[in-house]
């Protein structure tokens, strides 16, 4: 499979004020081949949407490079980027908000063709009908405005607009998350069907793991702006080498009563992305975290062919030897709070004594 999109060292920081910034994306790299679907998974705030928007240059990355079809599009001026737009498309999370309320289906879906140029009215009309048929819309929808469509129809119009120019890559930014279950399945079917027919590559951004599993060839899991694990769908769903991935996947509920649940939960919530330290982002929530995990951010290591994980202790983790290094203490304060304890007394003076586990002499000594 030849390479279509290469993202290298992508960083996006949103400044808050002079000293603080939100590190939405930290050093993210991946490759998407032609006709391939990469599922980008993570909870809210993990930076997955920001990655998609950086690729499309809807926002400017702070650092890093994006190559599209062998061309570096990171610093391309707008005038040179526009002719490439029809090959690189986006489907939005909110179907209704992404459609111009004053333009009907025909105007919306035909616009990319008009901007691309080089097609006669006849050709455009043919392509329009062909594309609408692909997303199961008909002539009767052509004159309708977004508010006259159902949510599913709106999203299919959004998809039609994205694929009408037969792009090489479509970024799907949570295309199903605002739709109900039946519609969700329908949209996913449409997407898979389109890929078979047009050979489009997808970057499928979602927190819906079942959806990701059903459409992706490969999956990358993001946590706090970093990819913590990536590999083929079988590899990721087969065995996780990163504690976060395991926790995430163990939270999937399959509609199958015979399937055994193996609960693996993390304590606390996703920490703040403001001025993060150079350390493993999961430290503090991680059941196998060691003080040494705070020395630097773990790099992605190849744990098996084509399968990468960013955990210092993946060997111990996967062999089951590294469980419960720091078992949760009964009545202990919120881990996100205790994470500060003993480390930054000036900022959280009250917490120091509250959590003996985290202020143990060993911890201090090691630092």
């Amino acid at each position, binding site marked *: 499979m030849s390479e279509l999109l290469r993202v290298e060292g992508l960083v996006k920081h949103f400044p808050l004020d002079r000293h603080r910034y939100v590190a939405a994306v930290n050093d993210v790299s991946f490759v998407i081949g032609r006709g391939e679907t990469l599922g980008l998974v993570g909870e809210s705030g993990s930076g997955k949407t920001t990655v998609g928007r950086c690729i499309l240059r*809807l926002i*400017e990355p702070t650092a890093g490079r994006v190559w599209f079809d062998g061309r570096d599009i990171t610093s391309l001026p707008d005038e040179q980027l526009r002719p490439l*737009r*029809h090959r690189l498309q986006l489907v939005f999370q909110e179907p209704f908000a*992404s*459609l111009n*309320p*004053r333009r009907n289906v025909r105007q919306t879906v035909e*616009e990319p063709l008009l901007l691309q140029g080089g097609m006669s009215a006849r050709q455009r009309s043919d392509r329009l009908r062909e594309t609408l048929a692909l997303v199961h819309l008909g002539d*009767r929808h052509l004159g309708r405005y977004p508010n006259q469509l159902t949510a599913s129809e709106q999203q299919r119009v959004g998809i039609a607009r994205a694929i009408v120019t037969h792009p090489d890559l479509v970024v799907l930014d949570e295309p199903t998350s605002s739709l109900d279950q039946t519609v969700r399945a329908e949209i996913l079917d449409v997407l898979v069907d389109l890929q078979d027919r047009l050979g489009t590559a997808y970057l499928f951004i979602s927190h819906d793991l079942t959806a990701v599993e059903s459409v992706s060839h490969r999956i990358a899991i993001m946590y706090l702006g970093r990819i913590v694990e990536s590999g083929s769908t079988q590899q990721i769903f087969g065995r996780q080498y990163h504690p976060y991935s395991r926790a995430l996947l163990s939270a999937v509920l399959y509609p199958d009563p015979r399937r055994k649940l193996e609960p693996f939960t993390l304590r606390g919530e996703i920490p703040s992305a403001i001025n993060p330290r150079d350390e493993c982002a999961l430290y503090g929530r991680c059941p196998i975290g060691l003080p040494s995990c705070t020395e630097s951010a773990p790099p992605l290591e190849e744990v098996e062919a084509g399968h990468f994980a960013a955990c210092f202790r993946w060997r111990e983790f996967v062999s089951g030897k590294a469980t419960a290094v720091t078992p949760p203490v009964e009545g202990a304060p919120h881990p996100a709070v205790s994470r500060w304890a003993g480390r930054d007394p000036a900022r959280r003076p009250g917490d120091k004594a509250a959590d003996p586990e985290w202020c143990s002499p060993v911890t201090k000594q090691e630092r």
Partner: protein
Amino acid sequence: MREIDIAEARPRSRTAGLAAAARLVRGARLSPLEVVALVIFAVILFLALFGPRIAPYPTETANPLLRLLAPSRAHLLGTDVNGMDIWSRLLAAPRTDVFIAVVATGLSVLVGAPLGVIAGYFEGNRRRLSSLVGEGIMRLLDVIQAFPVFIFAMVLVAIRGANVVNIVAAVAFVNMPVFLRLVRGEVLQLRDQPFAEAARVVGNSDLQIGFKHLLPNALPPLVVQISVTVGFAILLTAGLSFVGAGIAPPTPELGNMISEGAKFMITGQWWPSLFPGIALGIIVFTFGVVGETVGRLLQPGGRAARERGGDLNVGAQQAVADMVQEKRGVS
């Protein structure tokens, strides 16, 4: 095909036309006040076009013998100081006032709206120069708006001379910032909508996004503002004439009619001033209400409701029927 259906359903006879109009009124859910305002609005437009022709007496010919006659059967609203029939002049006056106000407001919109799009779209733009353009427009506006509108218009007319062209220019100039600010505000809010990003993704340039995608969505508040501004432009024109910086007599114009009659109020001849004054009030009010109505009907949601007969359930049923049909078509 839907279009053909509509064409066939077009009313052919006059009664069918009336019935269609009645349906439209019901579909638009107009309040009684709005109906009244629309009727008066139609009358004003009619007078602006044909007023001088239907006036029973000449509108610009003085007759000293008929000076300051009280309202009577012959002169419904009496006569003014020059012996001209007030009713006739009242019918003719909207042509002057409405013409000046509409042309001036049109000019304000033509200049203000595009500048508003640019100012709004480029404000805080990552490109320094674009951002400066937006900022520059707004600061210039602050200077213009620092002057009271009426005084400013008066000064402009005083400098350039009191003729129709200069009055139009002055009224247009002082009203332009209103539209600029309005459109800028709308664009500022619209440019962060996902559909604006969608427009960028499919390959629109900055200006295309601003004018093709954002400006049409700023239309409802713009139409409301246009109508209100026309009302106030009429008031401004009349005001300029009232202080003598506008249309001079004998041209029938509400402001100079009120002004001429004002000095006779204390001597008991109230009619030369009162009737043009009431007419002015009604006109300003009507334009305000009509603007609100049209703005409401221009909202995309309003249109959908009307096309579905105003019944939400019908829309839902239609959607379900479509989906069922689709499923059958697919499988």
